[in-house]
């Protein structure tokens, strides 16, 4: 199957769909297409559709529905897709809290769930499930990578996250690898948009750098206010606050920020070059890390379809677990808990012409595994 990389995208699609198992597969995609987080869901939907279009496999049907970022809507859609549309595979959820609502009951009913984003720790550890695959990351991974990277240059980091489970996981993940001293640790209110008070505290704390995890509008607000405050300390964070979907709204204030991710538009491999080019040609914008993960999810499913029929659940899961597809992230394997073993990179926000984007400057971890795999008994 290695030849498919050289054969380019069209060839990739052909080689997968050309194989023997022409058994129809129905995929249900539940993602956020309306409300505040719609930008992420739209990238996931579009990248998935791009992979499917390239594969041009007549045996796949994808039904997509909007969860509006509400757990109870996501549950209702999942019930409908399982009971009424009779899907074989579910995917698409962006947020951990929605995944926690949908995944345990869906996998309990024998449906395969493949996560293109969000990897809450319970699903990676004690509550792992043979029907659950995570193509993206375990939630702590990006934060851990930044903690590791901080050891190089910094001795007194100030850390900041919203006061909710993902925020606490973030700071825990950072501290798991960071060895220096903490200048301070602050939890902000979820949805908070004014950070003047926190910035004043950082200024007074004597920190030599700042690590923060503030997804969505919170990160935009913080980064802008940080640049306006004139405090001159280096900023670090996971990729979520500096992904392609939010960079335009932050503007030049984001320049130079270091952020960690498993993927970057400039990552040097054939599959990625072809992906970035095709995505730009199709949608007229650069893909985000969510788009890359979703594109990998689609190609993982297509690769498994080439090896087994979905009606033989165990054979199909074994085929998924092999992860025999050309990931845009280069090297990609599943761990025992069916979460990725992958490199995590450190990127820097740069300007190319008029467009803000990310460039890889370092590799924080090679073939990184998550901390929960040992609790998973499968």
């Amino acid at each position: 199957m290695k030849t498919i990389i050289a054969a380019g995208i069209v060839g990739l699609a052909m080689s997968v769909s050309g194989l023997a198992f022409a058994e129809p597969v129905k995929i249900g995609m539940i993602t956020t297409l309306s409300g505040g987080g719609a930008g992420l869901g739209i990238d996931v939907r579009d990248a998935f559709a791009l992979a499917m279009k390239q594969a041009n496999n007549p045996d796949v049907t994808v039904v997509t529905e909007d969860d509006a970022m509400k757990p109870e809507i996501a549950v209702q859609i999942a019930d409908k897709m399982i009971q009424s549309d009779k899907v074989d595979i579910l995917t698409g959820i962006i947020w951990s809290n929605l995944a926690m609502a949908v995944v345990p009951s869906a996998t309990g009913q024998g449906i395969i769930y493949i996560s293109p984003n969000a990897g809450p720790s319970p699903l990676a550890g004690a509550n792992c499930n043979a029907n659950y695959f995570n193509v993206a990351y375990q939630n702590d991974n990006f934060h851990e990578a930044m903690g590791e990277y901080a050891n190089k240059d910094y001795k007194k980091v100030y850390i900041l996250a919203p006061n909710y489970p993902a925020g606490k996981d973030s700071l825990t993940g950072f501290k798991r690898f960071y060895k220096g001293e903490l200048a301070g640790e602050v939890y902000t209110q979820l949805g908070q948009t004014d950070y003047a008070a926190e910035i004043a505290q950082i200024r007074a704390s004597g920190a030599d750098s700042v690590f923060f995890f503030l997804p969505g509008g919170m990160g935009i607000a913080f980064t802008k206010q940080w640049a306006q405050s004139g405090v001159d300390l280096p900023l670090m964070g996971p990729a979520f606050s500096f992904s392609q979907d939010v960079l335009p709204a932050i503007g030049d204030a984001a320049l130079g920020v270091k952020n960690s991710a498993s993927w970057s538009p400039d990552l040097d491999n054939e599959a990625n070059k072809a992906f970035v080019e095709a995505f730009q040609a199709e949608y007229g914008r650069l893909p985000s890390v969510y788009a890359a993960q979703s594109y990998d999810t689609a190609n993982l499913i297509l690769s498994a379809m080439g090896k087994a029929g979905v009606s033989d659940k165990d054979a199909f899961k074994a085929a998924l677990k092999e992860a025999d597809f050309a990931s845009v992230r280069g090297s990609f394997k599943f761990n025992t808990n069916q979460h990725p073993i992958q490199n995590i990179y450190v990127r820097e926000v740069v300007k190319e012409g008029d467009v803000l984007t990310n460039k890889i400057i370092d590799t924080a971890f090679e073939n990184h595994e998550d901390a929960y795999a040992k609790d998973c008994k499968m």
Partner: protein
Amino acid sequence: MTRETLISLAIVLALLAIPLWATAAGETFYITLATRMAILALAAVGLNIALGLGGLVSFGHAAFFGIGGYAAGILASHAFNMEPLPFGLPGTNAMPVIWIVAIVASGLVALAIGAISLRTAGVYFIMITLAFAQMIFYFAISWPAYGGEDGLSIFVRNQFPGVNTLNGLSFFFVCFTLLIASLGLFSLLRASRFGAALQAARQNEQRLATVGIAPYRIRLAAFVISAMVTGLAGALFADLNRFVSPSMLSWHMSGELIVLIILGGVGRLAGPVAGAMLYVAFEYFLGGITERWQLFLGLLLLAVVLFARGGVVGLLAGKARHG
């Protein structure tokens, strides 16, 4: 039988017909949808006691809905993990016990919120109930023990003696029975002396005071009863979704509960049922057609408020019964 009674009966029978038809046709998802309608209707019947009979526009009933949900989630998770609760009490997955806990917990919180909020009236009351619900919402998000914003999963639906609740149709009948019971409670209250005093307090407070009845206590009692019914619905909603999260406590949820009543008809017996059926169907079918369904929902609501004040029941049954 008055025309409204007939229409109420027809609406309730229509709700009952959906899962029966779905079972016959093999479309099992519609059973889930009908169960959702029944539970939201139950929550709205609860709110209708405060809002329809007492004229108390509570914009914070999501608080009670969520508390009921968390009662179910917390008890079930303790039972599932075999961890005792504080004071050595065991968790449970028996619905009757969960319901009682949900009702009592919602009632106690409503007593505290009501005792302060009911000192005010009108717009103050609307905004204060909203603000208290927000306070509980923020507490639930930042409180780490039960999942915070991630919420809490119920891995196996809770049990009711003698009923297989894992079966969608059986669970629907459990919810439907409780809905009918709540409609019975609503009718009883409306016809009782208590209900008369409550409605009198809405229309003319002074007159009530002159006959020696304190409107404050009547309203507080109505508010607490109303919260208890909504809390019960919250427990069922958690079991339907097998999941509880702070979004059950959000102010959008409070808004939705009011919307259900207005769509159906304020103060009408079957108004919440008609409203819940219409709302869920609208969300499901229009949500399947367009991502912009909330825009059309907004326009529909505007049209109902501006031009069809009695809601669905009002359109069908004519002039409102209450003043």
